[in-house]
């Protein structure tokens, strides 16, 4: 008799379980941003053409000769990149080294984009196929990586840099000494 009673409660227990699953999904929606797994690892060595010094390829590692810096993935065709350019200029003003990585972009468009919005970059390399973007585990533009003095990637900022993100990034670069 007791066995039957337990079986009677089973559908209710199952229902409550489903309810918990559904409610937890409602209260904490699935976050679809894919964080890069390269944090704590060195920047891979790639030789890329520079957008700044025409057609003089250089290795995509440590532009500031062992100084902590930012790698900013951007493109002239990317609208949020337009929105973050004042923040990048503010970062440059406070002495942060910024290396640009232009994704699937042409020199003349990069040039026009920087003339319009200001140029915060110490150097710009061109990733014409997006291979370096994939190697960085990036899932879009704009994205910014903090690289420490040993060339190890310390932090990934997904999406555009907003005004409120600037102090934290300056602090992250300072700590990456």
């Amino acid at each position, binding site marked *: 008799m007791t066995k039957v009673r337990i079986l009677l409660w089973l559908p209710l227990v199952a229902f409550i379980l489903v309810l918990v699953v559904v409610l937890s999904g409602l209260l904490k929606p699935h976050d679809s941003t894919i964080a890069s797994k390269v944090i704590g690892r060195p920047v891979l060595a790639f030789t890329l053409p520079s957008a700044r010094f025409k057609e003089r390829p250089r290795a995509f590692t440590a532009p500031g000769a062992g100084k902590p810096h930012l790698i900013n993935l951007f*493109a002239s065709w990317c609208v949020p990149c337009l929105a973050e350019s004042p923040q990048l200029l503010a970062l440059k003003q406070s002495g942060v080294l910024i290396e640009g990585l232009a994704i699937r*972009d042409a020199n003349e468009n990069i040039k026009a984009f920087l003339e319009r919005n200001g140029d915060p970059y110490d150097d710009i390399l061109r990733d014409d196929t997006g291979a370096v973007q994939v190697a960085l*585990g990036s899932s879009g533009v704009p994205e910014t990586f903090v690289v420490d003095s040993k060339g190890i990637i310390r932090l990934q900022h997904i999406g555009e840099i907003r005004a409120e993100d600037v102090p934290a990034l300056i602090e992250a670069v300072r700590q990456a000494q």
Partner: protein
Amino acid sequence: MKRLPAFLASLLLPLAALHADPTMAPSPLAYTELSDPAQEAKARALMETIRCVVCQGQSIADSDADLAGGMRAVVRARIAAGEKPEDIRAWLISRYGRWISYKPDVEPLTWPLWAAPLVLLMVGGTLAMSVFKRRRS
């Protein structure tokens, strides 16, 4: 007068949005098959099990996102260079995490997934057995 720049910007923004496409032609390997059919088959099989990080329900073989094209180019280039598909998968996982692969590995996290069919079969079997026994008696 102060409003003028903002007004101009609001005029420019839709223009910028219209041009929100890469200005470079996609890498040749993003849309061109490898000349060796055996290699292309290997690349294709792998691409169908790699998640596009832009259109997250699609594989990079199905997605038309620029980033998926870039990933296809990486996969094809590495296959052409003689790399094994599972090594390329492992490399991609090391960049983006396990979620990028549609192929579930047997590991503690996925044990329930692999065990579920067996468990369900066993539960169903015992239920059926008890029902048949009751009928006979």
